[in-house]
C-alpha cells in the first residue's frame, strides 16, 4: 500500500479493498515508528486523523455510480505546518506559535479535507516561517533526509518532503517562496510542483513573502501532483491575489506524447556553479527527453544571477511587515518577564523568533527604511521585472525550460548553517521562478553518491498541465521517482 499511487489508493478505497481507517492507521503506525528519528512531523493526532478517516469511509460507503465520492476521498495527506488548521496546532516551525491553534481553516485545508475528503495525517516540520533551505531553522529541530540521516531534507518544506520520501504519508502539501517545494523534492527524490502564483489560495497560509508564496503538492509522481493540484487549486474570493479562472483538470494532458515539445536550456543554468554529478544527471535527463521526441533550444536568462540578491530584498521586506503581527498581544508567545509595553514587544519577538527569522526581519526593516527604499526595495522590484522579462522572452522560443533544481544534492546537517550566503545560493535556480510568478516542478532524475538529484521544469503562466505532462512521460520511461530510501 505504501508504494501505491494516489490513483491506485483511490481505486482500492472505492473498491473497498481497504478502508480509509486501515490506510490511515498504516501510515500513522509508520509515523510512530520512524518519526522520532526523522522529525518530519510536528503534530500528529491519531484520534483526530482516525475520526476523519471514519468520516471518509462513510462518504465512500454512501457513494454510488451516479454520485461517486471525490477521487481522493479517504487518502491521508500530511500538511505543512503553516496551513492554519482548526483542531490542530499550527506552529509555522516557530516558538512564536508553538502552542497556536487557529480558530479558522486555511483554504487549502478546507478544500483537501472537506471537498476532497482527504484525511489529515499530521502537520509537518518546516523552516521557521518558511525561512530556510535546510529545515534547520525550525524551532522543533531539523528534519533528517530519509536517504541519509546525516543530511538535510531541504527546506522550507523539509518535513513534508521527508515524510513522503519515507512513505510516512502518500503525499503532502508544501509552500514555495523561493524553492521551498522544489528543493526539498530534489533532495528527497520527490515530485514537487509550485503552481503559477494565484492558482492556489493563500488564505490561511501563514505568509512569509506574500507576493512570492504559493502552495503546492509534494508527492511521488507527476500524476499524483496533478490530482492533488486539482483538489488544492481554485479561485478564492478571500484572497485578492487568487486568480478567477475556470477550473481545469491538470491531469488531462498527462499522457500526451512529447513530440515537438521545445525545451529551453538556459546557458546560465549550465555553468560551473552546479556540481558535476548533479549536472551529469540533468544532462542524462535531457538526453532522455530528446529520445521522447522533444527538441532542445539554447536560451538565455541574462538576469538570473540577480535573482538571489533581489529576492533577499523583496522577501525580507515583505516578511518584516508580515511578521509584525506576532507581537504577543492577541495570540502566540508572550515573553514571561517584561517592563511595559515596548519591552513586551522587544522581548517577545527576541525570544519568539529564531536567528534566521530575526535576520530577515532586520534586513527587511532596513531596506524599507527611510533613505534606503529606492536603492534597495525599488531596485529589487525593477530587477524583478527584468527577470520576468527574461522568461517572457525565453518562452517565445520554447515551451518548457529545463535545468537543475539545486546546484548540489542534499548537504550535510550543520554544513551550511554558519555560511548563510552559501545556504542562500542553494536556491539559485529556483528563486527566479517565484519572482516571475511562474509554475515549476522538480522531478527525480537520478542519484549522485547515493543522494537524489532533481530536474527542474519551468513553464509559462498557467502551463501546469504541460509541465505535468512532460514530467509524467519522463517518469513513465525512467522510474527514478519510484526509488525508495532503504531501511525505512
Amino acid at each position: 500500500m505504501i508504494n501505491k499511487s494516489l490513483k491506485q489508493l483511490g481505486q482500492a478505497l472505492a473498491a473497498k479493498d481497504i478502508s480509509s481507517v486501515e490506510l490511515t492507521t498504516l501510515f500513522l503506525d509508520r509515523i510512530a515508528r520512524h518519526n522520532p528519528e526523522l522529525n518530519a512531523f510536528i503534530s500528529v493526532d491519531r484520534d483526530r486523523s482516525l475520526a476523519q478517516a471514519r468520516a471518509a469511509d462513510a462518504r465512500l460507503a454512501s457513494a454510488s455510480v451516479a454520485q461517486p465520492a471525490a477521487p481522493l476521498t479517504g487518502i491521508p495527506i500530511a500538511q505543512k505546518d503553516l496551513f492554519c488548521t482548526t483542531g490542530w496546532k499550527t506552529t509555522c516551525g516557530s516558538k512564536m506559535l508553538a502552542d497556536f491553534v487557529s480558530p479558522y481553516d486555511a483554504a487549502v485545508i478546507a478544500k483537501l479535507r472537506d471537498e476532497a475528503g482527504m484525511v489529515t495525517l499530521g502537520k509537518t516540520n518546516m523552516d521557521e516561517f518558511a525561512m530556510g533551505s535546510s529545515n534547520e531553522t525550525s524551532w522543533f529541530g531539523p528534519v533528517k533526509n530519509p536517504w541519509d540521516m546525516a543530511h538535510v531534507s531541504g527546506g522550507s518544506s523539509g518535513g513534508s518532503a521527508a515524510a513522503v520520501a519515507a512513505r510516512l504519508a502518500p503525499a503532502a502539501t508544501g509552500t514555495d517562496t523561493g524553492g521551498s517545494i522544489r528543493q526539498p523534492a530534489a533532495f528527497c527524490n520527490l515530485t514537487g510542483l509550485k503552481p503559477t502564483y494565484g492558482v492556489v489560495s493563500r488564505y490561511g497560509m501563514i505568509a512569509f513573502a506574500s507576493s512570492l508564496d504559493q502552495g503546492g503538492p509534494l508527492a511521488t509522481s507527476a500524476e499524483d501532483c496533478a490530482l492533488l493540484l486539482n483538489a488544492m487549486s481554485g479561485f478564492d474570493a478571500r484572497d485578492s491575489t487568487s486568480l478567477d479562472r475556470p477550473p481545469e483538470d491538470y491531469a488531462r494532458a498527462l499522457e500526451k506524447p512529447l513530440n515537438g515539445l521545445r525545451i529551453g536550456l538556459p546557458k546560465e543554468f549550465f555553468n560551473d556553479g552546479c556540481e558535476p554529478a548533479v549536472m551529469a544527471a540533468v544532462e542524462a535527463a535531457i538526453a532522455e527527453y530528446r529520445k521522447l521526441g522533444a527538441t532542445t533550444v539554447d536560451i538565455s536568462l541574462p538576469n538570473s544571477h540577480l535573482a538571489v540578491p533581489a529576492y533577499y530584498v523583496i522577501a525580507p521586506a515583505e516578511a518584516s511587515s508580515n511578521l509584525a503581527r506576532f507581537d504577543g498581544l492577541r495570540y502566540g508567545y508572550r515573553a514571561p518577564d517584561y517592563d511595559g509595553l515596548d519591552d513586551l514587544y522587544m522581548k517577545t519577538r527576541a525570544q519568539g523568533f529564531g536567528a534566521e527569522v530575526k535576520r530577515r526581519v532586520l534586513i527587511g526593516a532596513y531596506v524599507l527604511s527611510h533613505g534606503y527604499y529606492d536603492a534597495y526595495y525599488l531596485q529589487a522590484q525593477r530587477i524583478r521585472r527584468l527577470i520576468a522579462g527574461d522568461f517572457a522572452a525565453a518562452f517565445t522560443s520554447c515551451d518548457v525550460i529545463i535545468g537543475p533544481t539545486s546546484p548540489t544534492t542534499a548537504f550535510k546537517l550543520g554544513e551550511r548553517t554558519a555560511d548563510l550566503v552559501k545556504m542562500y545560493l542553494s536556491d539559485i535556480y529556483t528563486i527566479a521562478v517565484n519572482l516571475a510568478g511562474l509554475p515549476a516542478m522538480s522531478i527525480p532524475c537520478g542519484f549522485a553518491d547515493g543522494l537524489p538529484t532533481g530536474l527542474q521544469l519551468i513553464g509559462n503562466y498557467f502551463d501546469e498541465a504541460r509541465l505535468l505532462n512532460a514530467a509524467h512521460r519522463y517518469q513513465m520511461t525512467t522510474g527514478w521517482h519510484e526509488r525508495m530510501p532503504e531501511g525505512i
Partner: protein
Amino acid sequence: MSLTLEQVQKIARLARIEISETEAGTTRDHLNGIFQLIEQMQAVDTRGVEPMAHAQEQSQRLRDDIVSEPDCRAACLAIAPETEAGLYLVPKVIE
C-alpha cells in the same frame, strides 16, 4: 556598504526585536555578509524599468459591502495571552 552597530540597533528597534550588545556584533557581521550579496544589484542600470510589485498584472478585485463575518470573539479571545471583560489586556498604553 557596511552596517554599523548603531544602525543594527536602530533597525532592531524599528522591528521591535531586542538585541543584546554581544548579539549586535554577530548580527552585524551576518547582515553585512548578506548585504554583500544584495549589493550585486547596484551594478545594474534599471532606469526606465517599472518596479514589479506583483507576479500578475491584475487589478484589485472588490467585495460587496455585506456583513459576512460572524462574531468570533469567544474563539479568538480563548487563544489570547491575557483578556478581561471581552478585551485584550496589554501593559498600560501611554499616549
